[in-house]
């Protein structure tokens, strides 16, 4: 029983963290900072998917969302402009 309560508490904490991360990405003017926070968001998302018992999606999200998407976005920001407005 205690273990079930702990898993639910971890689930709630992770969802709150995700919402805070999404809001910070929405507010940040520096695009590099926004992308790094988005990478942390993806990593927390893959931890949440481990909590929800889908290890396949967690592996794929950790590799694609936190790895490749971040690198590609930073490469494009390096070629264009860094600051919004």
């Amino acid at each position, binding site marked *: 029983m205690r273990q079930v309560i702990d898993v639910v508490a971890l689930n709630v904490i992770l969802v709150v963290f995700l919402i805070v991360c999404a809001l910070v990405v929405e507010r940040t003017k520096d695009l590099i900072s926004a992308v790094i926070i988005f990478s942390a968001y993806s990593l927390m998302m893959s931890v949440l998917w481990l909590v929800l018992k889908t*290890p*396949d999606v967690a*592996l*794929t999200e950790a*590799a694609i969302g936190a790895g*490749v998407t971040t690198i*590609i976005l930073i*490469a494009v920001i390096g070629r264009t402009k860094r600051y919004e407005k």
Partner: protein
Amino acid sequence: MKDQVLKTIARIITPFIQLYGIFIILNGHISPGGGFAGGTMIGTSLILYTLVFGVDQAKRKFSEKASAFAESGGIILYILIGVIGIVVAGHFLANKGAGFDMGTPGSLWSAGMIPLLMIAIGIKVASTFITIFHTLIEVKDA
């Protein structure tokens, strides 16, 4: 880049990342993972190589021709495995009916065509990500 520490560490760590990616691909039918996750890991190791050693040396290791070959080759391998199903069993992508070796469930050599399809997807995904990265960071002279 001239950082010696970064170069040494990257040279040591790249084969291990690739080995782990191959492990994920080949164990896709008995454990979590599969072609997409493993292929992305291999692509990420090549991206690391590009970031440390520069685009020119990375293109010598993994040229555009090789990457074009791997991209089309992945899909063609997938379709060829499906066509074996048409020829032998009468419908596209047949597994058990097409006479693939099923093996004992739970061992590495089992599940017929599923590991072959995973290998095809892995080749395709790895070469796709490295091509995307090379194309996006290439600065033109014009």
